[in-house]
């Protein structure tokens, strides 16, 4: 499930435009929606790089979802951390690619626990075991698959970037 050359090209082309949107999962981050499933009409971005490789782009995420959970993507988002952004803890199936930086990912059965720990001032001193939270790192260039039995939250540092495909 490594990103293909053309998907990297589509995502990297965003930097040529430098235009960032708001996404409710990533408040105050610089984000960009490529695709969002909608009960009335799906949303597709309109960048030429995406339109030129639209089929390949969607086939990649479709195949990944079918293989893992037998389902299609609900949204495909890019997010780059700013000086004040957040990732709102989620309890859904997702594949997360670390595009830039080694990215902290906290996993816990209980989503509320992740909501209570959105600000961690010293990751070394934090008592993970006591709080039943598992800290992970997604190395730059790698990806992380998570199902919906556990909740997860990205703790990103300024300048770090992810591609986030949500499946449930």
């Amino acid at each position: 499930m490594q990103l293909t050359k053309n998907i990297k090209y589509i995502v990297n082309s965003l930097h040529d435009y430098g235009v960032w949107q708001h996404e409710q999962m990533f408040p105050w981050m610089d984000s960009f929606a490529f695709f969002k499933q909608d009960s009335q009409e799906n949303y597709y971005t309109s960048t030429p790089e995406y339109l030129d490789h639209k089929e390949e782009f969607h086939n990649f995420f479709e195949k990944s979802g079918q293989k893992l959970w037998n389902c299609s993507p609900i949204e495909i988002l890019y997010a780059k951390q700013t000086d004040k952004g957040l990732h709102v803890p989620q309890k859904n199936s997702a594949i997360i690619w670390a595009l830039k930086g080694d990215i902290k990912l906290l996993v816990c059965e209980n989503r509320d626990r992740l909501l209570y720990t959105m600000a961690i001032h010293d990751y070394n001193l934090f008592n993970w075991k006591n709080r039943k939270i598992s800290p992970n790192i997604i190395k730059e260039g790698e990806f992380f698959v998570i199902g919906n039995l556990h909740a997860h939250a990205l703790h990103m540092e300024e300048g770090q970037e992810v591609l986030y495909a949500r499946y449930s």
Partner: protein
Amino acid sequence: MQDTVKLFIGTSDNHDDLAQKVYLYTLFKNASMPLDIVFLRPKDFPGWNRKTWGTPFTCYRYAVPHLMGYKGKALYTDVDMVNFRDIAALYKTDLEGKAFGMVWDALQDNGKEGAKAGNPRGFWCDSVLLIDCEKAQEFVDPIDKVIKWDKNYSYKWEVMRKLGSPHKEKTHNLVHMLDARWNSFDGTNPAAIPRGFDLWSKENPRWEDKEHLELDMIWQLHLTSLSYQPWHPKYTPHAKATHPRPDLMREWWRLAKIANSL
């Protein structure tokens, strides 16, 4: 005749930066006269009551006559535009003694008052607004009143009411009709009633029933539907939607890349 186009552009503080670059690039590319451009942004207008506005800059256009000292001619446009034809040609339009030049919006919803008056839809659209600043004084209140406007509707509707909304015939000596190609709403002709559309309908017409303009027929493209705007400004509460004109989107992104590289 003034030898500079005095253009005011309503925009947000920093959420429309790329749209602004695209618009400026196209304006300067096509202009035959020097452009004197003033951006109207919230940070430059502290204290304005903006509670009924649809965008961060909705009613700043009504500060233009004041900013011009109620003299001369000025052009106002929103930022979400792409210019394809010399803006000086628009600026030089003879207003024939009228206060404003605007494009007719056949689908403008005139509300309950309009329906009661037998004109449910159709009035002037102020997103491209050519102004005789002296004559406009009669229809635009002193700036202090505009700043403090606290009714439950935008000040825009007050100006439209003074102009005679919803009665087009009352505006004949007040508003000069601009060619609709100067304000093409998302690639359509705003002055045309969509095929088979009942103006009394509360529903919006189907996209495919609207009159569409080919790209080379558009003089000024207005990306007016917030949910369709390709850059999706962070302030819009509307859901993202795919613009139904991929040809216009390709052109916008192409221009964005050029404008960003300058």
